[in-house]
């Protein structure tokens, strides 16, 4: 493994994460409007200026909307290799306008999502010199459409691919829409959990499960 592949994934100075080892999967848990989605997106798009690859899985917004959101966060995904699995646009295959965006007909089709993801991941991993960040937005939608056991196997399989290839995985979940026992079990497939809340119009983060990181709430 080259030095580049071994080095930690870094983030912008305003994010209270010092760097995360390759092969790490993070569960980002926070309610809607808390800033959790922005944090989960930033953890991936912050790879753009570092020339790292990115693969997004979107289950509740079209690929186009997701990319717009990413563009606003990092000023355009121009420098990196990226791929998008869009589970919202109602068709299967390439979306016809961008060969880096593939569509799966439903968020309930976890087999199809997994196959499309693996194909894209393999290509981006190769083209981006084995540095890839993966973001899934969000698990809450998958849990609405598929059985818990199927989602569990899916997260385990996806996280395994990321772990074995030195990637960074970011899985977003809204804990207020799920039974806490479900969130806790899903968290056990991940290496660490990033909780996000917004008590007074300020977004706060708490990281649990990463060595060398404080477990206290920190303002973003």
């Amino acid at each position, binding site marked *: 493994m080259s030095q580049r592949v071994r080095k930690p994934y870094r983030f912008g100075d305003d994010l209270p994460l010092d760097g995360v080892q390759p092969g790490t999967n993070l569960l980002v848990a926070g309610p809607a409007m808390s800033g959790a989605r922005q944090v989960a997106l930033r953890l991936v798009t912050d790879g753009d200026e570092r020339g790292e690859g990115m693969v997004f899985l979107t289950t509740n917004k079209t690929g186009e909307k997701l990319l717009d959101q990413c563009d606003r966060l990092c000023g355009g995904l121009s420098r990196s290799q990226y791929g998008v699995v869009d589970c919202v646009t109602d068709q*299967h*295959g*390439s979306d016809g306008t961008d060969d880096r965006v*593939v569509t799966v007909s*439903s968020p*309930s*089709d*976890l*087999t*199809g999502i*997994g*196959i*499309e993801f*693996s*194909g894209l991941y*393999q*290509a981006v991993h*190769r083209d981006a010199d084995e540095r890839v960040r993966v973001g899934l937005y969000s698990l809450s939608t998958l*849990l609405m459409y*598929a*059985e*818990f*056991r*199927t989602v*569990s*196997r*899916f997260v*385990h*399989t996806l*996280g*395994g*691919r990321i*772990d*074995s*290839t030195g990637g960074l995985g970011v899985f977003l979940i809204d804990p207020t829409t*799920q*039974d806490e*026992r*479900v969130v806790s*079990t899903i968290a*056990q*497939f991940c290496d660490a959990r990033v909780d996000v809340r917004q008590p007074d119009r300020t977004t706060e983060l708490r990281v649990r499960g990463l060595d060398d990181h404080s477990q206290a709430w920190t303002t973003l």
Partner: protein
Amino acid sequence: MPNDTVLYVDGEESSRAVALDRLREQARNVTLVAATSLADAREVLRSRPVDCVVTEYDLPDGTGLDLAEHVRNVAPDAGCVLYTETDPARIDTDETAGVVTEFVSKGSPGDVEELWRVVAFTVESRSQTAYPLPPDEPERLDALDAYELHTDACRADVKRLTDLAARYFDAPKASVNLIKKHSQEFFTCHGVDWTPTAREDSICTYTILEAGDVTVIDDVKDDPRFADNQSLDELGIRAYAGASLVTDDGLPIGTLCVYDDEPRSFSADDRAFLRTLADVAMSVVDLHHAAANRPPESTSPDSGGDES
């Protein structure tokens, strides 16, 4: 990965031979078994344990996803990897949306190396199970294997604790379970005579994740993790309380559980009692293990030996 078996399925002879030859260069420490069709692969799965299935998408009598669906039924923990040139957009997942497989694009640069990396990690980390694994899973399984759990005396003593648990909780069913690599085995039962279940169907699979705690589920129908679990329906389990049997090294090898066929609650005292009973069960198992492994008493000088 020694002793692990990978089943490779491809109906096209030349393609199969090339891939197997190249895989053998990578996979020196696993057993590679070949099959030519869905029916052939099913026969292999019936006749021997398989840790991972690598399959073409188009098979003479079905698809690789038909096979993966079969694997999920007969060996749910096994890895499934589609290895095909077929464009993902052409792969029909309508009937197999819940199967979940890995996918490696055949013919892409470094494809066999990528395939082997995926297979090796999948087998070694068991990364396609539908449940989380305890952090020390290999050590946990070694610890379980090391115990002498086949003696009638050990089973009889643990059975008395199982009966005591049922009586204290006024529960129709109780058991001490061993959580093996892929299954849950019932070491002793009260009120039932259960046969092993798949580990993914077992609540105890989740109980051993919190080794020191007691897991209580007042109503499994109210727990999204188990609400659709048909196996629990068949066993008549509606309420559950379980505590892990934890070794001195902190490894959970099994559980002591009580079950009810109606929703019910368990008090803090109930939990404490179950925790204590599980600790006693572990001590009983340890004592039987120590007795079985006690070295033979040394022979006294008067009772024999060389007379020189």
